[in-house]
């Protein structure tokens, strides 16, 4: 029985080695790129989780929309919502309105989604896009939190105020107000609105 002996030519083997080395380099680069992408993807939620407690310490949020309920503030006005030792303060360029902690009767929070492009201008822009492209734009939305504060004035009159905050902030405000002594009752939560796919 003959045993086949393979002769490796020195030129060929060096070429093969070169190819293998190149391949290994490419694979290494690919693995590195994939791992970078993977780490970046995994790290972002962690960084968000880590960032949340830091954000919660801040007692002032800008660009909060007061939907309705504050006297001398027009509906849907944007301003800065601050948590003071005495209660809540909503400030715009012209006005500043306080809701004292003692006057608060109840606080509700809820999650909603808002269109990325909305308002009269946004609606016009959407309708101007040809071939129904505005409907595609309508698919893009972001989560927000709604903070509803029920309070009474000096005469005992009921007031309800609705704020729209970035996601995760309303709960922080509610918890801090409760810690300050604001009244909160137990609520029967309606089912969360499902994002209905059109």
């Amino acid at each position, binding site marked *: 029985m003959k045993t086949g002996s393979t002769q490796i030519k020195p030129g060929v083997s060096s070429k093969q080695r070169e190819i293998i080395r190149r391949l290994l380099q490419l694979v290494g680069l690919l693995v590195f790129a994939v791992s970078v992408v993977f780490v970046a993807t995994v790290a972002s939620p962690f960084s968000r989780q880590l960032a949340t407690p830091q954000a919660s310490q801040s007692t002032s949020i800008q660009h909060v929309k007061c*939907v309705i309920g504050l006297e001398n503030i027009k509906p849907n006005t944007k301003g800065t919502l601050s948590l003071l030792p005495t209660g809540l303060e909503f400030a715009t360029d012209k006005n500043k309105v306080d809701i004292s902690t003692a006057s608060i009767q109840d606080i509700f929070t*809820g999650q909603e989604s808002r269109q990325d492009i909305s308002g009269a201008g946004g609606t016009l822009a*959407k309708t101007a896009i040809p071939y129904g492209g505005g409907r595609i734009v309508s698919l893009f939305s972001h989560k927000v939190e709604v903070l509803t504060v029920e309070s009474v004035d000096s005469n005992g009159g*009921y007031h309800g*105020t*609705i704020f729209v905050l970035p996601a995760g902030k309303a709960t922080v405000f509610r918890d801090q107000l409760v810690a300050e002594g604001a009244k909160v009752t137990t609520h029967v939560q*309606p089912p969360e609105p499902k*994002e209905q796919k*059109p």
Partner: protein
Amino acid sequence: MRPLTRAAFLSNLSIAMCGAAFLMAASLLAHPSPRGKPGPAPQQAQKLTASAIQLERTDPPEGLLIPEDTRVSTYENVILQVTKTKKFQHVYRSGDRTAANVPDLVILRLIPQAFKEGSQKQREVTTISGATSIKVKIQFTSRDGKILVEKDLQGKVRFYGENLRATYDLAKKVAAVVNDTF
């Protein structure tokens, strides 16, 4: 094409004129005549007078869940719109102690009847679905509890706008009733 004879032309013309007359008659019948228009109820024909109104909060019936922001938005929008009518010297809020001294106070109650939460995204993408609607019974009562006027109203947002816009729509309708009643 063969030209029409005089007789055929007259026949076609008469058919066309008959058709037109029939359509006109039908449209006249469909349009409500001023005399046939259902007049306002006898009690609403005579407008009520009151110097002040108090808007009371009413809890929804058991089994009807309405998000609190919708309820608050309804209340506050109605306060704004009723104030805008300028029919009353003062619009009191629920629980306001100073309203106790007003002799001719009218109390307005909004009793929730139904609520359907839609989706803004669905409305804007499909146009035909995702509407939000809120139905309430409004009651104007005197201080002693006598019902003066009662009506069912519905607020809707069908195409563009956030869900809370339904409460604005409802408040405008309440203001219209206030204008008709006082």
